[in-house]
């Protein structure tokens, strides 16, 4: 009886909250019309009081208080006094965690159609759509920061490319095609061979039609590009965090002797360019005039060489993983492996090279015949990686935020992956870190997000249970110090009291 009444009242409260929302908003200015313009410039303080705070990087704080000012955490602890005038959020009985960080998310938070990859001058900021419903869906399961793919990777075998206006003379995967160059190739081939369907992606030879069929339009070779977005629903400010977090490459680009040779050449060119650039700056500083050196590679490759961003590449088998580790050690860049199905076989090699891993604990891959002990996936990978000190972040089976298809596979079940990591033997602390501080480090944002600490961005979740429990709902999600999601109001997830 009691629970029934409680449920009923829960509904009532939820209902009134929602229906009263516009009225409340509207009532503020009408009550005192002169007030909003004379508002003092003091910043609003938000206080989350009484929650069980899982800080991730430090000890757990029971019944603690978090103060938020100007979008940042200004105080955390049990003895924190709530200043007068602060907006209080009651978190008694709630679990408070940092917002989750998703490193592999499909296109979301961006207007559809806008910012197409073909337009070089398109700015990511201009395509941001803070009213995308996917942001709410993400917040609904706790994702407050996402590395969002803005351009899917395409093939680019043996193409010449242009990066920021500089032609890339090497035939190398992953750069935008030089369309003029392509046209010239097509023209020559047409002169030599007559009409053809398309050029072979690997050898550049024309493919002659066997029967009269329509020419399919050439798909442009593109490099995958991702940006880091905060799920700041309804606010543009602070939504775009970083425009490049990884250099993304497809595994095919580095397979084989030629691929690896090209890659080494790229890195060598980037290193030489950086040296040339430094000496050029010296010359300019001494007052002489000199042509600046030509930039031979993309900015991302330069940032990779400077160890500002890691290379993110898929590698699943032991041999592929070894190849990547060896290249990263030889060429001296940071490496993040995705997939990494067989990483459990050689965890020491990963740990030694400082390689990080993004994987999906619920993904299964059968061992190869004859290699039953050393191939395929293993549920205990999370334990093995934790024990050997390989940092890992988690991602879902699909990188979409979907309301379609089988539930539980997409990002709206991301915390379940952490639960599976625990099932495989990792500690709860590591599993939660795999959703927060570890991916934050991969994105180079560990100073801003990933844990509840003074000075960090106030990206905080109020949960009605353990973050690793499938029954847990996010009650409130705070992004950049602003409440961006309330389960009772947004109503994309069921609203009832347990």
């Amino acid at each position: 009886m009691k629970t029934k009444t409680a449920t009923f009242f829960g509904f009532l409260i939820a209902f009134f909250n929602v229906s009263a929302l516009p009225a409340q908003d509207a009532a503020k200015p009408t009550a005192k019309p002169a007030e909003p313009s004379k508002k003092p410039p003091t910043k609003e303080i938000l206080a989350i009081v009484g929650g069980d705070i899982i800080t991730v990087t430090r000890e757990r704080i029971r019944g603690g208080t978090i103060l938020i000012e100007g979008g940042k955490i200004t105080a955390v602890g049990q003895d924190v006094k709530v200043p007068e005038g602060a907006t209080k959020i009651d978190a008694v009985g709630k679990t408070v965690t940092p917002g989750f960080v998703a490193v592999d998310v499909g296109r979301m938070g961006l207007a559809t159609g806008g910012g197409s990859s073909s337009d070089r001058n398109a700015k990511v900021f201009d395509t941001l759509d803070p009213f995308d419903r996917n942001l709410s869906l993400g917040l609904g399961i706790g994702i407050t920061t996402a590395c969002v793919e803005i351009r899917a990777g395409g093939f680019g075998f043996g193409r010449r490319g242009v990066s920021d206006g500089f032609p890339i003379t090497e035939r190398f995967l992953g750069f935008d095609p030089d369309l003029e160059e392509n046209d010239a190739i097509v023209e020559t081939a047409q002169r030599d061979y007559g009409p053809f369907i398309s050029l072979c992606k690997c050898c550049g030879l024309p493919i002659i039609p066997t029967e009269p069929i329509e020419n399919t339009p050439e798909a442009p070779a593109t490099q995958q590009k991702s940006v880091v977005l905060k799920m700041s629903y309804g606010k543009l400010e602070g939504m775009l965090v970083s425009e490049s977090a990884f250099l993304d490459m497809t595994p095919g680009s580095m397979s084989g002797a030629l691929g690896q040779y090209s890659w080494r050449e790229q890195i060598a060119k980037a290193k030489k360019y950086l040296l040339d650039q430094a000496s050029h700056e010296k010359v300019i500083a001494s007052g002489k005039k000199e042509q600046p050196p030509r930039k031979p590679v993309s900015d991302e490759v330069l940032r990779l060489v400077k160890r500002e961003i890691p290379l993110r590449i898929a590698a699943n088998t032991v041999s592929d993983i070894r190849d990547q580790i060896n290249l990263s050690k030889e060429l001296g860049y940071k490496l993040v492996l995705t997939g990494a199905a067989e990483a459990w076989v050689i965890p020491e090699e990963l740990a030694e090279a400082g390689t990080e891993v993004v994987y999906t604990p619920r993904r299964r891959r059968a061992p190869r015949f004859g290699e039953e002990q050393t191939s395929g996936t293993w549920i205990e990978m999370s334990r093995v990686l934790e024990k050997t000190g390989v940092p890992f972040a988690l991602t879902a089976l699909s990188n979409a935020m979907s309301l379609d298809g089988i539930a539980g596979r997409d990002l709206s079940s991301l915390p379940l992956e952490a639960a599976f990591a625990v099932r495989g033997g990792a500690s709860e602390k590591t599993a939660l870190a795999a959703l927060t501080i570890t991916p934050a480090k991969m994105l180079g944002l560990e100073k801003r997000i990933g844990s509840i600490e003074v000075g960090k961005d106030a990206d905080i979740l109020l949960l009605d249970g353990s973050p690793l429990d499938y029954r847990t709902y996010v009650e409130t999600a705070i992004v950049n110090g602003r409440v961006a999601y309330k389960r009772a109001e947004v109503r994309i997830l069921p609203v009832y009291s347990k």
Partner: protein
Amino acid sequence: MFLVFAILAENQCFAQRSLAIRNAKIETVSKAGVIEDGVILVRDGKIEAIGKDVKIPLAAQVIDAKGKTIMPGIVDPYYVVTVGRDAQSAGETRTIVVRGQTITVPGGPPSSSTSFTKLSDSIDLDNIDWKAATRSGITTLQLVVSGYAQSVIVQPTAKSAQIVNPDGKLLVSVTNSTPSLELLRNGLRAPGSGPGGPRPTAGATPGATPGATPPVSPTQKLWTEVREGKSSLFVNLNNAATILHCVAATKESKQAKLVFIVSGSDLFEASSDLDPKSHVAILPPRIDFVPNTRDRINIPKFLSEKEMPFAFSLSLGQNEFRAQLDTPLFAVSSLVHNGLGRQRALEALTMMPAKLIGVDGEVGSLEVGKKANFLILDGDPFAATTSIQRVFVEGKQIYEN
């Protein structure tokens, strides 16, 4: 004393004669408020007198409007015509689709989406079907085109329409993409303060005589007016996010007054970022949904509670507009019955849009000296069954139900 005159509004013989409408309930939408059993005296297309005790000249033509209500003619601040490109005969003519009707007008097609169109140069008013406007009681309208253009202010006549002001307002369509936002940002940036201001069009003469002020292209002039707050900028927005982008892009230019053409639910979503002082909304009159829910909401009511100014454009709600000819106020009346203030609703149909398009000195309310643009309704404007009986523009009847 019971005289009934057949009204031949177009007939020139009657043009000089004054027209008196009496016994009507008059919604003036001015300080005078509502006048019961009032008289409107019209001479030379203007309102000569209005009130309860107006003496009707003997020679005047008299309409007895007992039981009827008179309100100012509706002003539509955003009457869209779409300019399409005719692939076959590019350069010579272009096709304009007006409310489903395809017509061809002289003038080349726009070369790109950001090319500037001055509508008064390229539109043939006689080729547009004005029936929908006149039947809806629209007596003044701003004719607009999507994209980058300058509007034209038009009023319908009995057979066609005439231009009231060929130099209308600056219009831009903004989407969630860089090119359209750059147009806005560059336009609002004062010249010389940054790279790539609005480029002079081909029409501007390059070599000016020394000492003379450098040539200013028509678009630059329009942008200057917008920057200085002399003229408002009409921004058509396609989603809620664009509102935020637009507000962010215009934060620097404090004086610029922006008119957002936007759906109610988009406006509701972005409402916390809007400033009632410098932003005005034009929206279709209808009950909207709260975004991402199945809850209905009266956005105009919400806006009036927030003190956010707004105007209705009847033609923006395309389907309702077509379906509700003769009872064009049905959609507005449903908003009024759900809590929108009556006066606010009337203003949003007349005075507010008139102010936005800069014709409030002439139309928008029933006051002495203003144009005699009014509607005779067979009941209260916001009663569900009320329909339009007659529509007058400058004292001439252009439509009778």
